[in-house]
């Protein structure tokens, strides 16, 4: 039942004055945006104009054709075939692969170290907790660049020259040139190793499903991981054995002043990796500690009240909740690590940034090189962020 007053049927009167665009939020918004776009366009025009003038003065032109020219410089370490006669393009690809290698290894080890230190920080043992705190406070407050150089000096200086290299089992040599390992050659049929690994993962997944069903029916718990992890680790060897061991090694041999064959891990990479891992681990440790502490004490208390052991409580109650808090900042730590790998340029490890910098030095194509580098780094960032977002959404709490 409504109550309409018969007086109020006439159209409402206009408020005084004209309705200028200044007071209509929609119009005001549109005008502001047009102004912004015009200013931006004018700015861009000026920049492009200046750039063209300057490029002309330097006898340069804008174009990506230089990527097919011969590079004329060497890279001390590359995962793909590369020599000074390879193209600029190939140099950049080699650099990119090195960046991915360092970032992946770095993320892997930093996560492990970070989690260990983070949990140590929460220990009841004063020495353990104190050591973790000392580590974090020491390494967090020194610039990464300095740490890289310090590790480099620490790693490189004491190493002997090539002729006096430390050797292990006559196949691994450690010297000023780096860590030299036998280069594995995979013969025909070696792909069976990968197949066996894939089969092991698939088998583990099916085994886990079966174990869950069994637990639902009978209440019995099967030690899935105890059985699966050894199988996963051994499976590639099984595959190789099935193929008749098509694996030979090129052993490094001392020929003259240097080693031939073999696979080198240059000291620059070792220093960079160690520094990245130790530095990033401090931030990961703090993230992990914050995540675990954020889970209210009430959760552990409730678990204890139910009689759940501390191990199960951690696994089933605390850590799943802590992961939700930990994953977003962890993702940004991974991004930071990936970006920090670009410091390789400072110690001469040929990563993407180093390759780009050298290409620019040789060719003078600053804008093109910057563009390529930006696109690649942004893609790496986006990929990592997307993966972490997917991982995060799988862990989300369902709320009302």
């Amino acid at each position, binding site marked *: 039942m409504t109550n309409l007053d018969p007086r109020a049927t006439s159209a409402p009167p206009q408020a005084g004055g004209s309705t200028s665009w200044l007071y209509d939020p929609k119009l005001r918004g549109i005008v502001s945006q047009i102004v912004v776009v015009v200013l931006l366009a004018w700015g861009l025009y000026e920049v492009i104009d200046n750039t063209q003038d300057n490029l002309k003065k330097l006898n340069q032109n804008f174009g990506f054709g230089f990527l097919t020219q011969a590079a004329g410089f060497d890279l001390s370490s590359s995962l793909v075939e590369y020599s000074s006669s390879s193209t600029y393009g190939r140099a950049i690809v080699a650099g990119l692969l090195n960046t991915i290698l360092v970032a992946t290894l770095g993320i892997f080890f930093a996560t492990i170290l970070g989690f260990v230190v983070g949990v140590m920080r929460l220990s009841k043992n004063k020495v353990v907790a104190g050591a973790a705190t000392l580590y974090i406070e020491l390494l967090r407050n020194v610039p990464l660049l300095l740490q890289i150089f310090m590790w480099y000096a620490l790693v490189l200086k004491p190493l002997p020259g090539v002729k006096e290299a430390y050797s292990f089992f006559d196949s691994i040599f450690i010297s000023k040139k780096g860590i030299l390992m036998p280069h594995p050659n995979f013969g025909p049929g070696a792909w069976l190793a990968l197949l066996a690994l894939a089969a092991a993962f698939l088998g583990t997944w099916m085994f886990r499903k079966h174990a869950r069903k069994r637990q639902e029916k009978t209440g019995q718990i099967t030690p899935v991981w105890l059985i699966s992890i050894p199988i996963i680790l051994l499976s590639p060897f099984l595959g190789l054995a099935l193929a008749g061991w098509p694996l030979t090694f090129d052993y490094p041999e001392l020929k003259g002043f240097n080693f031939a064959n073999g696979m080198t891990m240059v000291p620059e990479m070792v220093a960079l990796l160690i520094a990245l891992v130790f530095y990033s681990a401090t931030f990961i440790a703090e993230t992990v500690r914050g995540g675990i502490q954020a889970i209210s004490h009430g959760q552990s208390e409730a678990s204890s009240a139910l009689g759940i052991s501390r191990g199960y409580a951690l696994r089933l109650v605390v850590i799943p909740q802590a992961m939700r808090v930990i994953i977003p900042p962890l993702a940004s730590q991974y991004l930071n690590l990936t970006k920090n790998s670009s410091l390789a340029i400072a110690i001469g490890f040929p990563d993407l940034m180093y390759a780009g910098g050298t290409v620019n030095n040789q060719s003078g194509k600053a804008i093109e090189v910057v563009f390529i580098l930006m696109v690649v780094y*942004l893609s790496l960032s986006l990929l990592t962020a997307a993966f972490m977002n997917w991982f995060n959404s799988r862990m989300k709490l369902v709320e009302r």
Partner: protein
Amino acid sequence: MTLAYVRTTEAPQLPAPASTAGLWARLRDRFAPTPLSGVAAAVIAIFLAWAVWTIFDWAVLRAVWSAPDREACNAVGAGACWPFVGSKWLQWIYGFYPIEQRWRPNIVFLLGALSLAGLLIPKIPYKGWNALFFFIAYPIFTYVLLLGGFFGLEQVDTEQWGGLLITLIASITGIVASVPLGILLALGRKSEMPVVRLLCTGFIEIVRGVPLVLVLFMAANMFPLFMPPGVNPGKLLLALIGIGLFSAAYMAEVIRGGLQAIPKGQYEASMAVGLSYWRMMLLVVMPQALKIVIPGIVNNFISLFKDTSLVSVIGIFDLFNIVQSGFNDATWASAQTGNTGYFALALIYWAFCFAMSRYSQYIERRLNTGHKR
């Protein structure tokens, strides 16, 4: 059922009894609550003792304390080469600034320290004026005084500035530029106008997705191409622009977090009482948001201070680079010079950053107890 016992007199408050556990039990609880952690603690303790002894031995016991040149430092078994630091430390602070003009950086340092003290120590009043001075007047004053060329001051080009001077200038410029820019970017990111929102979000995401080294590389190699003819700002200025833009993007995210923490009710109350958008931001939202993000701002500053070492990659002589360049000095080049230099650098950076992080924690604690709802 009758009650067993009801007091008729007040029970006095008694002091707590001494601990019932013995000394041994208490020690065990602290240092080895579980056998595994006890073993770990022992291993760690041994390692730490070894590490501390080695460093102490190198830095103090075996160190060379005074020598005219590298001879003593090059001797077998020598420790840290402190005379190297002694001869170079002024250069580490001022870079290549002419010695007789060093009073100018000194004034800059003194003013900066006073202003910063006024801003950071909570009890000191007139923070608004101080902030205006620090963020606007001080940078201009610094630039004019250090560069010279006016008022009868001898001109000292930016190429001659170096060392701690550059490190501090770069860090402070980064913060000074990034707070106002960051506020604008953060507001723009939440704007309802799609063009503004797109531009701000795009800028923030792109800058945060690339390494600082790349931004500096861009500043050193690409920005000169954008300049109109005859305009040559010099590497330092371009690097400062790069650092400012980079830092603004990160600051924008910190401020966005602060804005999100302001409850919607504050916006509504401001609107209900008739405040316009900018008045609302200036008088109600921003003061609250900025207080929340002060720890974040200080953390950004700590990161920035460490990141300024990267300008050495493009050839600017900040503290890191200038120490490194000293390693090649023929008078001092020796086996221990490099180690001593890096050790000294680590101490200096650590001291600054640790102090700043302590301050940040102090402020965070203060803010948490101050504004309880």
